[in-house]
């Protein structure tokens, strides 16, 4: 308690405020370091005003002396260099063009640009690049429906099913070109509803026949035989022997792979018949969005390589 007001009286100025009769407030000078830091911020602000966008006036603002240069490409593919005042969008353009990761990616994209799909797949290095980039693109664009590993979703509700991409069973074909066009343009998968045509026993017989194509255990052979003649309607898309048609995306019905309704998950043959009846009755409408506007052609090519190898093709 050596520095009481009593023994410093006269040495340090007080603010003149007095509380409770004898409490006074010193008016000490600010610490030197603090004061200089404060002046420093003022100088910093002035330098900032000169270099970067800051003061608004009329319908514009001071743009600052700093500039950012980047390359732009117009619709005809002509490139030109643009120099813009310092701003986050210009910095972004520069980053997209010349950040280390952008450069690394560009280098690899250039490498695979003129290679055929077969060449990309044959070279372990380019295949590695295609699958790692394809995997990232798949996670962003495809995984929400087809699952993070491409396993799809198979549900008893046909509207809630999304095809498994990891089996080697291709509804729309497995050529690279077809996969690219499906990703670019999207797919509208549609099976008409046949509820008006087949009802009651006729519908059940047809469902039994469809299940007999893939040799489901417990199928009622008699009913299946009766239903065979009705299958003529289905043959237009699924083929006379139910082998399907990749051109129009009609699945093969003779294998045990089910893409749109979880027949294998049904408990017994009656439940399976019910599920198939439901599909024939209501038909199917499946929409895969088009990604041609969302992804670049190069990205879609790499994605096709990734997707195709998921199925083991």
């Amino acid at each position, binding site marked *: 308690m050596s520095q009481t007001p009593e023994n410093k009286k006269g040495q340090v100025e007080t603010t003149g*405020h007095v509380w409770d009769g004898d409490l006074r407030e010193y008016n000490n000078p600010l610490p030197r370091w603090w004061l200089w830091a404060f002046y420093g911020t003022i100088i910093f602000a002035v330098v900032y005003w000169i270099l970067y*966008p800051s003061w*608004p006036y*009329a*319908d*514009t*603002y001071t743009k600052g002396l700093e500039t950012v240069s*980047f390359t*732009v*490409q*117009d*619709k005809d593919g002509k490139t030109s260099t*643009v120099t*813009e005042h310092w*701003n*986050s*969008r*210009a*910095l*972004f*353009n520069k*980053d*997209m063009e010349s*950040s280390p*990761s*952008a450069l690394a990616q560009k280098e690899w994209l250039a490498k695979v640009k003129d290679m055929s799909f077969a060449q990309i797949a044959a070279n372990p290095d380019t295949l590695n690049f295609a699958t790692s980039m394809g995997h990232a693109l798949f996670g*962003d*664009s495809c*995984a*929400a*429906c087809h699952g*993070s590993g491409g396993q799809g*979703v198979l*549900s008893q509700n046909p*509207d*809630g099913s*999304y095809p498994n991409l990891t089996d080697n069973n291709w509804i729309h074909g497995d050529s690279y070109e077809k996969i690219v066009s499906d990703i670019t343009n999207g797919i509208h998968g549609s099976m008409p509803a046949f509820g008006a045509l087949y009802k009651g026993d006729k519908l059940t017989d047809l469902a039994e026949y469809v299940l007999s194509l893939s040799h489901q255990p417990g199928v009622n052979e008699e009913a299946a035989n009766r239903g065979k003649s009705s299958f003529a309607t289905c043959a237009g898309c699924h083929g006379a022997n139910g082998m399907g048609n990749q051109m129009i995306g009609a699945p093969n019905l003779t294998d045990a792979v089910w893409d749109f309704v979880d027949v294998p998950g049904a408990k017994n043959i009656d439940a399976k018949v019910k599920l198939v009846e439901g599909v024939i009755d209501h038909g199917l*409408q*499946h*929409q*895969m*969005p*088009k990604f041609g*506007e*969302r992804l670049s052609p190069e990205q879609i090519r790499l994605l096709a390589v990734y997707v195709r190898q998921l199925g083991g093709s």
Partner: protein
Amino acid sequence: MKHESIEINSALLIVLTLVVISIGGLVEIVPLFHIKGTVEKVEGVHPYTPLEQMGRDIYVAEGCYLCHSQMIRPFRDEMLRYGHYSLAAESQYDHPFQWGSKRTGPDLARVGGKYSNEWMTQHLIHPQSLVPESIMPSYPWLMQPLNYGDIADRMKALRDVGVPYSETQAEYDANVKKFGKTLADQFHIPNAIKSVKEEAASQNWDGNPKEITKMDALVSYLQVLGTMVDFSKYNQGYFSKFR
């Protein structure tokens, strides 16, 4: 005025504190209304249709913004994941905007067209049935009927804050010029109920064609997000002029 009189008068202190703080806000905000480049000149941005606007109100009411932002920032990683960075012009008819600041779920600024209507519907009813890893809650009540009787009032309220929904013939004609007849018809407040019905019937939004549900409205809103501007019309340098 002596500083002491401010210190000992709390009402005066509050008023003067507010004045000082608002200077900071005004200096930052007011010039944006005068600076020409604040809202980019870009084609294609239009107000929401009545059904989309109903969906937007559900989006706000359900608090979607608490987990989902609608603001793609100009960074390379965001561009690669979500697409072109968001423009001020794209939220010019949003009152209030849904930029958000929290991404528990992904950004939704360009979710329109990324997933099918069936996916959107099923995902909102039960997200884990499609994305097992997801922590998003289920919204099964969105399949309830949509109460769109007050859509005209909602549009009038938005009109008051500057969204060009039309009430008079002159405003309608101006909208035809600006947005084309199809959209102008939908932006005409006397048509509002009819527009909701027509748009709900125009597509199979939620798999239930018999009824206009909240899901119809929300899915139609989600499917238009980020789709209004055709970015292939502009080169990368165009939008950096506006900052």
